[in-house]
């Protein structure tokens, strides 16, 4: 059973993505900010196959921060260097994309059709 760690601070998006992933056959663990995302991963490290992190959410200081997702990316990679990670974002931010990839992310996904994310996850896990 493939398990996805999903971290996003927008309730509606988090819930909807979670259900889409569930229906696609994944197991989903969720968190809504960097701190809880890191803790949740630590608790489930062995089970999680891939992490999907929103770019803009409350950071480790507990306050909303642009690019907080990249901080969490770094943290997770420290915990598990081989973990595949996708960074989610609302905007087409090219320089953030570069930063994400150089920080170890496998892909940068602009939120739109949820099905696209499912396909991306499948591609990464297969590849």
């Amino acid at each position, binding site marked *: 059973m493939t398990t996805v760690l999903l971290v996003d*601070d*927008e309730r*509606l998006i988090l819930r909807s993505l979670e259900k889409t992933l569930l229906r696609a056959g994944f197991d989903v663990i969720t968190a809504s900010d960097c701190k809880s995302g890191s803790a949740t991963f630590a608790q489930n490290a062995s089970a999680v196959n891939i992490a999907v992190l929103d770019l803009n959410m*409350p950071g480790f200081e507990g306050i*909303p*921060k642009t690019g907080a997702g990249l901080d969490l990316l770094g943290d997770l990679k420290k915990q598990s260097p081989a973990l595949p990670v996708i960074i989610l974002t609302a905007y*087409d931010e090219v320089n953030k994309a570069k930063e994400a990839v150089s920080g170890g992310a496998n892909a940068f996904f*602009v*939120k739109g059709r*949820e099905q696209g994310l499912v396909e991306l996850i499948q591609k990464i896990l297969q590849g």
Partner: protein
Amino acid sequence: MTHIDPRRLPQILYIDRNDETRALVRRLLSHKYIILEATDPLDGLQLAEETHPNLILVDNNLPHITGSEATTRLRKMLPKTPIVIISADLAPGSRERALAAGAIGFIAKPIDADFEDQMDAYLNGKIEVLEDAEKHLLIYQQELVERLEGNTRQLTATVDKNKHLLQQNERMFSMLERRHKLLETAARVGQVVTSILDLDELLKYTVNIIRDEFELYYSGIFLVSDDEQWAILRAGYGEAGKKMMAQNYRLRVDEKSMIGNSILSQHARIALDAVGEESRFKNPFLPDTRSEMALPLVVKRRALGALTVQSKHLNAFTEEDITSLQAMADQVAVAINNAQLMLKLEDATSELVRTKTFEAIATATGEAIHWVGNKAAPIPGSVKRVREDLTYIFAIAAQFAPREANPQNEALIAAAQIIKEEAQEKGLDLEKALKEMSAMKLNQLRALVSVESLLEDLDIASNSAETILSIKEGLIGPARQRTDASVSLREMITDTVANMGLPEGVVEMEWADDLPNAFVDARQVEQVFNNLIKNGWEAMLNVTPDPKIYVHGRRDDNFVLVTIKDNGPGIPKNIQEKIWVSFFTTKGGSGGTGLGLSSVMQIVDQHGGSISLESEEGAGAMFSVRLPAAKQVES
């Protein structure tokens, strides 16, 4: 010792230009005679008239007139006074000439010991007799005549020369006067012309003033086309000019016309007899032209065009005029160049403004689109799930088939039938759904027909749509209508800051004692301050070592002035314009809907207030918000 009364000593007038001789004579005679001296015969004559000396001693070698002539004149003036000529001329006849001239004595130089005695003798009445007086008189007179004639000739020649010089001077003077006037006019024209930056106005003004100041028949300005092949008439004096321009009058830039020629060669061209001149293009609009000049308008070695000046008179222009007028043409060229550059600059500026505006709009639109896309993202997924779930639910509902139909369940049976039929029509495969469900475990089944899940998905879709709509309405729709009330900004902002969850000590607030309430829509204004404070914080996060936000509130006339100042990185000038256009800041989260500064400005504007920004890169940013104060209620 006999006392000699000087007043009674005889006076001798001595005319000699030689200082030494005079000194000698003085030495020899002054013990018994009074010596009056003159170095110049004319002075001598005057002195003689004044003093009536007893004797006049005249040296023969005098300036201006000879001693003889002086003698003759003296004789005429004072017939009784003895005149003695003293001369170094020992040529034969010199003594005779002297006597013929009217002298009664002749003393040869050098002056010797006899001198005193001789002078005594003459004073006592000695007269030397001239033999053959007539003959010598004649010779003398002839000499006189010749000399006079010679003098006359000299004088005439001098007068002629002077007349000639005078004429020359007059000519030169009038030429200078003319050149002066030209230069003056040229300078005046040049000065005014360089201050006109509008090209059309400049050209019109120039042709008019040149024509008027120089009293010409016509003047016009041609400017070269972009391909530099044509000189196009851009301004022309009077009716002729108007008509020619209406016809788009133009000349090729080649040697054939004066204008073309002057542009090609970058040299003035002049035609003094326009009727006969080869390289002049006969212009039917200007039939009275008799002389003409074309002056190229050159700036930095590039010919922009040419100026034509035309006169009804022949030979109205000289080569010298070219210098003065070319100087003026050069200034006109500079003015035209400046006006053209000004046009280019205006174009470039409006181009730049357009580009920047488009950029700003594109940025704003892009962000807006992304935001909407983000909020809308859950909707398709949720709706798909609802659709899927409904298939299963319909499948179950369609199965409703009680063993027997009775009045209570007739409707239900019919309903179940309707569901079955329509589902089929719509292509929902209820059979397949039933099959799947039969094969499932309870857990899976639970997920499929979960009423909770279905309602939740509808909620997700609905809330997402609501969020989008509320933003839209917040910005451009009915919610713009405000419910104004007397609001304490101090309370509002204090609450807002508390809800933002910023670390302790970051925000410092100071409120004036007489701070009035503001008369505003609380919901909208709350968003304004939320936005401003959040922006400040986010800019400083992880950037500024000791981040601080100072909020001050006080009264400012009929307004409440709230300033929000941070010590963050500040906003560079080139971004300061963009921030007002950028549509959204963050996507949501705990800080509100993130309206962005453009909305902030709109809200403040609509309340009749104002907002401004002061910031410099590296020196923080301060927003000043003015909102109308609530009228104090007299209690």
